[in-house]
């Protein structure tokens, strides 16, 4: 099979599952469709020859972040939080805004002939974990160390927001 056919198939699958995320009524189903969307995006990473990103995307996004999403959904009382259906004027205004944005985006992409990145200097092995490590721990050392500060802040923030006092119920 031609590689572009795989790409078209994958893109259609990704868009379809992403649409199902916002269209399904049950929030748990939305989360499961989102997991499927992440798997499709991981397959795109394979086509881009970025296998490390593929593995990280599955482990972190499809695994860990989705667990958090499920927790958040379970923490809400879903019966109390059913959103009211919008009036038809709001729906019309929303579709007009979204449609205009879509037209503008398509026009921008069509007007600008985006050149192929790097051209002749393209190296298919850039996304491999060896090369990624060399770049990450050499050229991009400062962002890497800043990430640890970001993690630290996230940890402290989560503890400050979520700490419970003793004696409160767990269910």
């Amino acid at each position, binding site marked *: 099979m031609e*590689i572009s056919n795989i790409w078209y198939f994958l893109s259609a699958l990704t868009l379809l599952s992403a649409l199902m995320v916002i269209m399904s009524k049950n929030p748990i189903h939305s989360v499961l469709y989102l997991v499927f969307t992440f798997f499709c995006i991981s397959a795109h990473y*394979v*086509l881009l*020859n970025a*296998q*490390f990103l593929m593995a*990280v995307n599955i*482990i*972190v996004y499809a*695994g*860990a*972040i989705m*667990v*958090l999403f499920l*927790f*958040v959904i*379970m*923490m*809400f*009382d*879903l*019966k109390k939080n059913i959103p009211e259906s919008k009036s038809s004027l709001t729906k019309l205004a929303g579709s007009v805004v979204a449609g205009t944005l879509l037209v503008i985006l398509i026009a921008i992409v069509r007007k600008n002939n985006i050149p192929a990145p790097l051209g002749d200097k393209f190296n*298919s*092995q850039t996304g*491999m*974990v*060896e090369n*990624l*490590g*060399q770049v*990450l*721990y050499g050229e991009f*050392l400062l962002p*890497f*160390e800043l*990430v*640890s*500060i970001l*993690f*630290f802040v*996230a*940890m*402290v923030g*989560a*503890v400050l927001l*979520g*700490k*419970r006092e*003793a004696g*409160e*119920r*767990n*269910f």
Partner: protein
Amino acid sequence: MNYQPQDFLPIFVQLAAALAFIVLVMVLTHALGPKRHSAKKDDSFECGIESIGDARTPISVKYFLVAILFVLFDLEIVFMYPWAVNFKQLAWNGFYEMIVFMGLLLAGFIYVIKKGILTWEK
């Protein structure tokens, strides 16, 4: 090594085989197994206590905290993997870089432990 996307085809074949096995077994059990439907048989906990109320009760934020800490340390391990692959080439320089990275995360971990987030009952 010069990797291409098709070199990872065996992984997808394995994934497809695992999925196909699950689907096959599910279809086979439903096709071969006996079917006896009744109000009691179709209960969620057939031989357990009767289920009361709704499963969607609000749960404690403690679970969420443990989950978010898991995600953070999960990401830490992700950053260690490219470092471990390049361990020899990066030599001591890379080691010191990693010490700084791990030191800050360890400070966060000590903070979490001191705050008693991971102790369930106090």
